[in-house]
C-alpha cells in the first residue's frame, strides 16, 4: 500500500480548443479497486484512452512503479501492464472460448501450429481462477452470457500480464444477476492482491459494493477523490451529479 502501481499527475488533454481533461491526478494501488465515476462527458473515456495508449496527453505524466512512462501506442501501454477491457470486449462471437482467449497471441510450435490442448487447459483454468467453471472451452462465445463474456475478457487481460486492469463500464449493459456476477469477478481479482483495478461506472451502488478508493470527474476535472472511509455515502451521490446538490436538482425539477 505504500507505493501506487500507477500514478497520474496533472494530466491535460486538449482536442483543439476543447479541454477534455484538466490537470487530472489519479493513483491506483495493487489489490485495490479504484472507482472512476462521473457523468457523461466528464472525461472518463478520454482518461482511460490515454492510460491505455490510444490517445496521447497534451501535458502531464504517467508513472508506473515510480518511473515516468508515457505511452505512444496501445502496445506500449499493454507492455507496461495496462490491460483495458472495453465495453465491446473485443470478443468474437462465432469463435470458441479458447480461440478468443488467445486471439492474436496464440501459443504455437513450428510453422504456427497451435498447441490446442494446452491452450484449452489454460483458458479453462484462468476462467476458473476468477470464478467461472466453463466446462467446455471449445464452445462458441456466442453461447455465453454477458457476464461470462466479461469474465473471459478480464481473465484474458490478466493472463497476458495486466497489472492495472481498466474496466470500462463493465456492468452497464447487463441484467441485475449478471451485474452481480461481474462484481463478484472484480472482488475475486482484487483478492489476488497484485492487480490494481480501475472500475469505471455510472452506478453509485455498484461502486459502493466493490470500491476501495474513488475519483470523481466532472467537466474534465477531479472534483473529489479519496478512500472509501474518506468519502461519505451521501457525498457520492452529490459528486456523481457533478457536484450539484440533490436538493437543488429536486428544486429545479419542482420549478418546471
Amino acid at each position, binding site marked *: 500500500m505504500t507505493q501506487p502501481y500507477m500514478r497520474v499527475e496533472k494530466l491535460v488533454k486538449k482536442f483543439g480548443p476543447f479541454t477534455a481533461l484538466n490537470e487530472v491526478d489519479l493513483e491506483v494501488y495493487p489489490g485495490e479497486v479504484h472507482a472512476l465515476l462521473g457523468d457523461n462527458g466528464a472525461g472518463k473515456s478520454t482518461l482511460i484512452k490515454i492510460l491505455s495508449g490510444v490517445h496521447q496527453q497534451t501535458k502531464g505524466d504517467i508513472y508506473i512503479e515510480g518511473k515516468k512512462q508515457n505511452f505512444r501506442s496501445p502496445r506500449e501501454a499493454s507492455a507496461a501492464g495496462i490491460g483495458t477491457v472495453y465495453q465491446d470486449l473485443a470478443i*468474437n*462471437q462465432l*469463435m470458441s472460448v479458447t480461440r478468443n482467449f488467445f*486471439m492474436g497471441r496464440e501459443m504455437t510450435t513450428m510453422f504456427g501450429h*497451435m498447441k490446442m490442448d494446452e491452450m484449452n487447459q489454460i483458458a479453462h483454468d484462468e476462467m476458473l481462477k476468477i470464478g467461472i467453471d466453463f466446462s467446455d472451452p471449445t464452445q462458441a462465445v*456466442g453461447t*455465453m452470457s454477458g457476464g461470462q463474456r466479461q469474465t473471459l475478457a478480464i481473465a484474458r487481460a490478466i493472463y497476458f500480464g495486466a497489472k492495472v486492469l481498466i474496466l470500462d463500464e463493465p456492468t452497464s449493459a447487463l441484467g441485475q444477476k449478471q451485474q452481480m456476477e461481474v462484481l463478484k469477478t472484480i472482488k475475486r481479482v482484487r483478492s489476488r492482491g497484485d492487480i490494481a483495478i480501475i472500475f469505471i461506472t455510472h452506478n453509485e451502488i455498484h461502486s459502493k459494493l466493490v470500491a476501495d478508493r474513488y475519483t470523481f470527474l466532472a467537466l474534465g476535472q477531479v472534483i473529489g477523490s479519496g478512500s472509501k472511509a474518506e468519502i461519505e455515502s451521501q457525498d457520492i451521490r452529490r459528486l456523481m451529479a457533478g457536484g450539484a446538490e440533490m436538493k437543488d436538482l429536486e428544486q429545479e425539477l419542482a420549478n418546471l
Partner: protein
Amino acid sequence: MSDRSEADRLKRETLFERLVRRPEIGSFIVMIFIIAALTLASDGRAFNALGTKNNIAIIAQFGIIATGAALLMIAGEFDLSIGSMIGFAGMSMAMMLKWGLPFGLGEATPFSAFIITLAMTLTLGWIIGTIVVRSGLSSFIVTLGFLFFLRGTTEVSFRLINQSTQISGLPDYKETSWFADIMGGEVFGWFYDLWFALGGNINRKGDQWVTGFDARFMWWIILSLLAYYVLSRTQLGNWIYATGDNKDSARANGVPVNKVKIGLFMFTAFCATLFAACQVFDTNTSDAAKGNLKELEAIAIAVVGGTLMTGGFGSAIGVVFGAVTVGLVANAVFFIPWIDGSWFRVFVGTVLLAAVFANERIRKRITGGI
C-alpha cells in the same frame, strides 16, 4: 437461490450433438442424398471406372477454386475475379508455350511458363487485396472490376499476339516435361490397377479400361488437407476466423487483419492459376472464355459447404462435400441421358438457397440466437 451457477446452463454435449453442430453437417447430408440418387438414376454407371474418373475430374476442379473462395469468405471477403483469373492464367501459360517467353527470353518450358504466370497472378491478387484493405471498399465491387478488367485483358492479349482468342494443338508436354505431367497427367494409377486386379475396370476388349485419375485430384486433396490443417490447427487459421468474425476486435487483439486479407486474395489467385495449369496441360489448349462463371460456382460451393456469407465461420471439409455435391450434379447429364442439362443450374440455385437458410440456422444455434 439455488446452487446453480451460470456454467450449469450450458449442458455438456454428446458426440452426436457435437457432430450435428458441425458446420459441414448440412452439406454432408445433401452429398449423401445426391450420391444415392445418382447411383439409382444411372444404374450405377455414374460410379463405374470411367464415371468415377470423370466425376472426380470436375469435382476436383470445383474443389480447388472453392477452397480458395471459402478461406477468403471466412475472412469476410469475396473474390469475383477467380473466373477471369483462370482465363488470364491459362492464356498466359499457353501463349508463352506457343510464342516463347516475354522480353525475348527464349523458349518456354511448362515450368517456366507456370512460374512466370504465377508471379503475375500473385501480384494481381496482392493488388486486389491491397486495394480492398486500403480503400475500405467492398471486395464485391473491387473484384467485380477485376472480373471485367482481366477478362478484357485476356481477350485483347490473345488478339494482339495470337490473332485468335484460342490456342489449340500445342504439343503434348506431358510426354517430355515432369512438370506438365504432375499438372495434367494421371495420378493414383494403383487405384485403377487394383480395381482391375479385383476383376472390375474392364473395357470391351477385356483389357484394363481406366489407368488413373486426373492429376488435379491430387492437387485438390493436397489443397483441402492444407486448408483443413491451417483453419483448425494453426495461428493463421485463428487469424482468418478472427478477421472474418469481427475485424475490429481482431485488430484490437493484435491480429494483422490487413495482411491476412491480402494473403488470402493472393491464395485465391494461386488456386485459379493451379486450376488453369491443370486445364492447359491436360488438354494442351487454351481459350479466352475459360473459367467463365467459375467465381460464382466457387462461392456457391463454399456456401453449400457451410461457409457463412458474413465471414467468421466455415470449414474445409464442408467445402469438400459441397464440391462433391455440385460436381456430381454438373456431371449428372452424362449418366442420365433423359435429363436436360440445364437442371444443373436449377438444382444449384435451389441448394444454394437452402444452404443459406441452413447456415443461418446453424449460426444462430452456435451464437445462441443472436
